[in-house]
């Protein structure tokens, strides 16, 4: 298909494109506005955990102590990340927030709390909210709970492992979300809407088995198209009565 034909299809089905784009604008306005309102403040904390390598004389093992320490660190980070998704942790978090004056359901906490590993030994915790104090409290309690879990897990899983040197190098802090993020989200949603519109246009064209226009008639009928009579309902100018 020639480039001109692609353009012709776009012109012919411009209504589909326009309507999809308008719908995308509406959805983007609503969702971006809602999420910007609810996520005006973002609190974040990072926990760095590393197992100290032990001298070979102490372990008496043939395994490289540094490698062993890295492997142990990975296990700890994985265990803590998994723990952060458990019902037990979320319920403990919900209870831990009550002294701060916040009563949040553990399921809502599970949906909103973002815990992920940014490096192999760093766990990032974040929470977005319209309330700065709430965001900071949640992240603080969550970080403390995870830190408290580390020795408990280590005692069970790695009883002979050296203690974990742990510290929060980025204490819970809040930041006001900038307008550019909301704008970039909005722009991204519009772009998605435009792409969806284009996909719909060509999907409709693919599924439509009828003759669409002059070029289409000429192609399928094999004879020249002598004229195109406009539809009576689409015309605006009318003849004056004679």
């Amino acid at each position, binding site marked *: 298909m020639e480039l001109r034909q692609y353009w012709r299809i776009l012109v012919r089905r411009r209504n589909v494109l326009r309507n999809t784009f308008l719908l995308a604008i509406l959805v983007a306005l609503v969702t971006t506005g809602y999420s910007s309102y609810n996520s005006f403040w973002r609190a974040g904390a990072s926990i760095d955990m590393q197992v100290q390598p032990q001298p070979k004389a102490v372990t008496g093992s043939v395994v490289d102590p540094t490698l062993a320490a890295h492997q142990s660190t990975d296990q700890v980070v994985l265990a803590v990340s998994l723990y952060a998704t458990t019902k037990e942790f979320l319920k403990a978090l919900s209870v831990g927030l009550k002294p701060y004056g916040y009563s949040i359901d553990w399921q809502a906490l599970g949906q909103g709390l973002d815990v992920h590993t940014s490096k192999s030994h760093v766990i990032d915790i974040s929470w977005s909210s319209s309330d700065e104090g709430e965001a900071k409290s949640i992240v603080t309690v969550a970080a403390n709970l995870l830190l408290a879990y580390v020795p408990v897990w280590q005692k069970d899983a790695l009883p002979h492992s050296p203690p974990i040197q742990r510290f929060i190098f980025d204490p819970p802090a809040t930041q006001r979300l900038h307008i550019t993020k909301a704008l970039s989200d909005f722009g991204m949603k519009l772009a998605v809407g435009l792409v969806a519109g284009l996909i719909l246009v060509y999907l409709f064209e693919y599924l439509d*088995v009828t*003759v669409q226009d002059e070029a289409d*008639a000429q192609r399928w*009928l094999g*004879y020249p198209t002598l004229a195109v*009579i406009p539809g009576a309902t689409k015309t605006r100018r009318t*003849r004056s009565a004679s």
Partner: protein
Amino acid sequence: MAVIDNLTARVSRASDGKGSQRLLTSPNCPTQITEAYNALLTNLDLALGPNAAGAVAVAAVDGTADAALVATNLAVLTARSGDRTLVVDCDLQRPSLPQLLGLNPSPGIAQLLNGEHTELQSLAQPTPLPLLGAITVGTVGTAHSQLARLGDIPSAVLRLRNVADRVFFITAPVLASVDLLRLAPYVDGILLVVTPRRTERQAAAKAREILTKVEAPVLGSVLAPQ
């Protein structure tokens, strides 16, 4: 004058349907439609070449298009330009000329073909335009679903061509009947009517195949909304 007014009133009454605004005799017909039909007539004459003043069969590709409206509007234009014009409804399956122009359904082309009515002057019914005559399908028995079974097509076409400068035949859709194929050898050209977003591409391809096989003198197509 009173006769013309009476005929115009009949046409207006008959044209209250969906095609009313697109009939060129209607005062509400948009200018764009008139311009489009003028362009169609010009291109049709160019395609006909030296036989510009001849007989043209207008047929829809399938049942979705309205050939009667296109043929009638072309006939109106040629009559306005001073040619003695006849529009003949040969669509036995869906006669629409009586409704479109407010005519009596009978007598019509069926009576001319079977010899019941031989007087052309009285067969052609008057229209609001003095130079435009219209012949309806007439009374067709249930057994006769094809034009050829009604009588001698070549002589009837010849007689019609002798009394008018231009003759527009409205025939049944290409894929619905063989009437167009029977009529094709005796006309100067065939105009196919396609309805955008209704006529299927496969139907168009099938019509092309049929018309190519019989070497029908197809001049081109027109895209006309239903």
